[in-house]
Structure formats: C-alpha cells, structure tokens
C-alpha cells in the first residue's frame, strides 16, 4: 500500500482548465473554459424502463439529485399523460422547495459568501466558510448547519432518503404526509424563514453597507446584457416546480412564453469544436457568437434570471426582498452577474416561506396521492427550475415504456455561453500588456462561481473537488504563465 499526500498542487486528472490567449499587445484575445466530460448517459438509459429514470437520474449529480428526480417525475407524468392529484403536486412542490432552500443557503455560505463576507481580496486561506463564520459569529455557523439538517429532514420525510429521493411516481407520489410529520415540517419552515431573514440582514450589513462591494456587484467586469429564461406561475411569479417558461429580452420585455413541451421551438444547441458542451441559445434570435445584446440569442438561467423574468415573488417576505434588490440595483432587469448571489438569498426566503405555506395547507396530509397511468407511453417532456437554472428532461419510449431516446438539458448547458463570456470578460478586464495581476484566479473564478456550474459533478473521487488551472499563452501560442490554486 502506497502512502501519498494530496495538497492543492498535487496533480490529479480530470481538472478544469481555463486557457487565456493574448494578442500582440499582451491583451486578452480569447479565453476558453475546458471541463471534463461525462460520457454516455443517453446510451446508459436507453433500453431501460422509463419508470427507473427518477431513480437513475438522481445519480447524475451529487448536488442536484432532487432536481433530476422531480424533472424526471414530471417527464413521466407527460409520458403517460397522467395528471398528478392536487395533493401529490403539493407534496412534490413542498419537497422541492425544501431542497431549493437548503441548496441556496449552502451555496451562499460556502461559495458566494466568502467573496463578500470575508472579501474578494482576502487571503485564499481565509476566504472560505470558516472565514464567513469567523466574521458572522459561531452562532451563525451553527445555524447554517442546523437549518440544513432540518431541511434535509423534510427531504427524508417526503423523499424516503435525504439525498437520493425515491418518492415520485408517474401521476403522483408514493407516500402521504402524516399529521405528526406535518408538525415537524412546519417547525422547519418557520426556522428556515427566520434563518433566511438573518442571511439577508447579514448581506445587507456586510455587503450593501460596503461601497467597495456594491461597486463590485454593480460594476462592469461582471456585467452582461442578455436574455433571461425561467419558470413562472399563472401570475408570472417565480415558481421552481411548475408553470410556463418565460423569456425576457435585455430590456426586460417579454420575448416568449411557452410550455416545456414546446422547447424545441425556442431553444437550440450550438456546438464549438473546442468544447464538448453544447451551448444553448434562443432559436428565434439566432446564434451570433459569444456576445450579449438584443441581437444575440445567448440567454441566462438560475436565480437572477428567474427574478428578471418574473413579475415578483408569490410570498410576502420574499416579495419585499425582491423589491429591495431591484430598488438598490436600479430596476429590472439586473445584468450584473454577481447579483446572482443576492437573488439566491431572495429565492431561499421564498422557498422557505413556500415550505411553510404548503405544510399549513390542509390538503397536504391527504391520502389521495396518485392517479394511476392508463395511457400507452410514447414521448414525455418535463421541466423544473433546478437551483442552478432550468432543467429539462425529454424521453421517448416504445409502447411498453422502454426508453428509446433520452435528452437532458441541464442548467449549466443553458448557462454555458454566458459562463464562457463572463470568464473572458473578467480576463479581458484584468489582464493588460501581458501583466497577469495577483489574485486573478479568484477574480476569474468569481465570474463563474456566481452561476455555480456543474462540472462533472457526478464524480466523487478524492480529493472531492475539481482543481482548476489557468494557462496564459502569448500571441505566438507559447505558454507564458500557469496558475493553480495554492501556487
């Protein structure tokens, strides 16, 4: 048995890579992001019974299993043309909101928070969740862990398991909620609402009262005028579980509103020779390259996009937080990528309020939880809003329900072009005349951390995180600088 030590500079395979190419003047010409590819999911799924998909797709991502479970369940509803019962829809949405709240809170305190609460220029060793806790207090740290544990408790009650849920069936769910469980969920909902109020107050105190941070959020380095897409309910309010997909243009005007089943009329995928990622764009605007503005079909998804496409939040406290965000950032739509973090907290508050609202609904303990499918399956499409944006599943089957074709559009694919553009813009703003300033790794990472992209997120090999490298090449294509975290 060999003994090894892994530190941040140990070379491991499967890392992410940003390549930056300079022109003759030493300014940035192009930047590329390369991420490891996961292969063969479609082939893996084909030939299996479609009912297995809610269970299998949870394994695609170690972070978003509930999102895949729910998108898959909704796809099965559509495949068998069966409408879940009213109680089943509420139970699903309740579980889904608990998941959203937990994921958003975790993201803010572990990923986005450190840049703001500790500071973007702070030493890397302090710019982490421990640094956030040091600044916000140990009590806050305990609250983060507690709220997360309780919300996972809700997932366990409804989903069977906290991580890989097994509850959703075509036409409903497999288990009802008892009165006793409802009481526990209400307690959790109340705790989560209070926690999110605390998190927003912390954001207010630490970020909004600091001019440097406000300038960073509102500044130009991280800004893109793009289209936005997200699910909205019948009143055009943000909804994670169901509704219509709404697209607004860079001026905030509604550009399209459509059902998930019509996605092929609106979304296309562009292929580049240097990346396996397919870049989604709006078909009715067209692919014009990695550029923003009205004439480019590039659009964004995820928290800020959802707020931008909506007319507000469906719960009172989140609505207040929504209004405050747009008031401070100068009205809708907001194009500043770093505002994704703020939007994420607004959404966490909404998700928590919605958990409470649904848990208090008398129907939530109903035993009428499934409508049995009777139709012959052929094709189904389902959509949810994953924490990281719109997630769409599309299955085709034979008449026995055996999968013949599977297509998934994951959130990161919708955001792929903007992520690339954000990295390139940050690099262009920061590198001049061949000078690569200190701290550039973090400043560039901040550009894509806001989107929290999924990068080969289904793998779990040690050290449990994807290393990232930045390579800088001069105009002759010679490597002039290599940056790795920790170096």
């Amino acid at each position, binding site marked *: 048995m060999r003994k090894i030590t892994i530190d941040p500079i140990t070379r491991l395979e499967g890392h992410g890579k940003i390549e930056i190419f300079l022109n003759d003047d030493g300014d940035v010409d192009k930047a590329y992001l390369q991420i490891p590819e996961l292969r063969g999911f479609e082939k893996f799924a084909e030939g299996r019974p479609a009912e297995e998909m809610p269970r299998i797709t949870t394994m695609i991502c170690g972070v978003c299993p509930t999102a895949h479970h729910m998108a898959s369940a909704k796809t099965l509803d559509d495949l068998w043309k069966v409408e879940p019962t009213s109680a089943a829809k509420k139970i699903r949405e309740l579980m889904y909101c608990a998941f959203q709240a937990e994921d958003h809170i975790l993201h803010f305190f572990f990923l986005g928070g450190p840049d703001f609460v500790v500071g973007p220029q702070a030493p890397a060793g302090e710019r982490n969740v421990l640094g956030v806790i040091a600044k916000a207090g140990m009590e806050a*740290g305990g609250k983060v862990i507690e709220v997360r544990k309780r919300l996972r408790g809700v997932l366990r009650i409804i989903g069977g398991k906290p991580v890989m849920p097994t509850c959703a069936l075509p036409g409903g769910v497999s288990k009802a909620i008892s009165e006793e469980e409802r009481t526990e969920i209400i307690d959790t909902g109340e705790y989560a609402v209070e926690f999110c109020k605390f998190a927003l107050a912390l954001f207010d105190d630490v970020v909004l009262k600091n001019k440097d941070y406000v300038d960073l959020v509102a500044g130009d380095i991280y800004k893109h005028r793009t289209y936005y897409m997200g699910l909205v309910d019948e009143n055009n309010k943000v909804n994670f579980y169901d509704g219509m997909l709404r697209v607004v243009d860079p001026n905030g005007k509604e550009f399209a509103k459509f059902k998930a089943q019509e996605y092929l009329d609106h979304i296309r995928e562009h292929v580049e020779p240097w990346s396996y990622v397919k870049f989604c764009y709006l078909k009715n605007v067209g692919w014009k390259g990695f550029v923003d503005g009205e004439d480019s079909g590039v659009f964004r998804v995820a928290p800020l996009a959802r707020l931008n496409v909506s007319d507000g939040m469906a719960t009172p406290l989140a609505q207040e937080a929504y209004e405050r965000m747009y008031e401070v950032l100068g009205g809708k739509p907001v194009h500043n990528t770093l505002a994704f973090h703020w939007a994420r907290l607004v959404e966490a508050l909404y998700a928590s309020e919605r958990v409470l609202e649904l848990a208090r609904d008398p129907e939530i303990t109903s035993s009428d939880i499934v409508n049995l499918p009777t139709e012959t399956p052929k094709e189904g499409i389902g959509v949810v809003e994953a924490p990281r944006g719109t997630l769409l599943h599309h299955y085709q089957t034979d008449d026995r329900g055996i999968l013949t074709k599977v297509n998934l559009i994951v959130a990161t694919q919708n955001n792929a072009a903007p992520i690339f553009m954000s990295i390139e813009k940050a690099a262009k703003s920061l590198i001049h005349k061949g000078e690569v300033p200190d701290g550039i790794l973090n400043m560039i990472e901040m550009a894509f951390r806001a989107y929290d992209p999924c990068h080969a997120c289904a793998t*779990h090999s040690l050290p449990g995180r994807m290393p990232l490298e930045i390579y800088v090449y001069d105009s002759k294509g010679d490597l002039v600088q290599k940056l790795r975290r920790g170096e």
Partner: protein
Amino acid sequence: MKTLILGFGNPILTDDGVGIRIAQKIKEENPDLEVIETSEAGIALIDYVAGHDKLVIIDSIKTGQGKPGELYKLGLEDLKPFVYFPSSHGIDIATAFKLGESLGYKMPKYTSIYAVEIMDNTTFKEKCTEEVEGRIPFIVKQIVEEENLRKILSLKAA
C-alpha cells in the same frame, strides 16, 4: 469504540463507484458493522460521522500515476484542506472535518482514508473496469485486516 465505514462514489460512473462496492462487500461479510454508502459531496460528511470514534473512508482517486486498483492509505493530515471551492461540488473531506470541529461537533478521533486508483470515472456504466473490479476482494481483505475490523466486531459483541 463506535466505528463507521463510509463508502463514497457514484455507482453508475464506472470506477467512481469502487468505494461503494468495497463498502458493500465489507458489510456483506461483516453484517454487524455500521456501513454507509453515499454519493454525496463532502459537507454531508459531518451529518454522517459526528458522534463516531473511528471512521474508515473508502473512495476512489485518479492520480494517473499508479496502477488501476492500487490501494493507497491516507490520514486526514494527508488531505490538506483546500477550504476554497470553485463550486458546490467541491467541498472536500478535510474541510468538512475542520468545519465540523470548529462548529463543536464530536468528529471521529481516528480516521483512515483508503483510496483506490481508478481508470475511468467519466463513462456511465454500472460496473467497474476489469482491472479495478478484479482487485476488490483483495482490497476488502486488506482494509478489514489493517483496520482490525474483526476485532472491533468481537469487542462489540462482547
């Protein structure tokens, strides 16, 4: 001594699932041991391991320098916390430990981490590659011996 065996991995990504398969096999052979298989990222570690005295983690690793199926043993001190994450998917074991401790959780006193060198963790497949699969029985035996798991069981029974 409250002992937990934790197998990490994704069972549908070829060799990525090796940690889970090894954990399953240890459980099959020693049903009274507490074994958890998980596909979760690092932070969930706190929930699983808090309150245990001894922890054995089994995971995969891709150094690209060892032979597929080769087993490495690491201590927590060998995994320096990165404490700095490019995405949610990247909260590592050492950081989760540090976080658990700083928040006042009782984290295990003794932790061993076993990592199996793998070949392929990017193809969706339910089986490991032949090279890795073939080594599983041997690795199970090694971990059970190295960690005195039988002895722990007999003490538990007594």
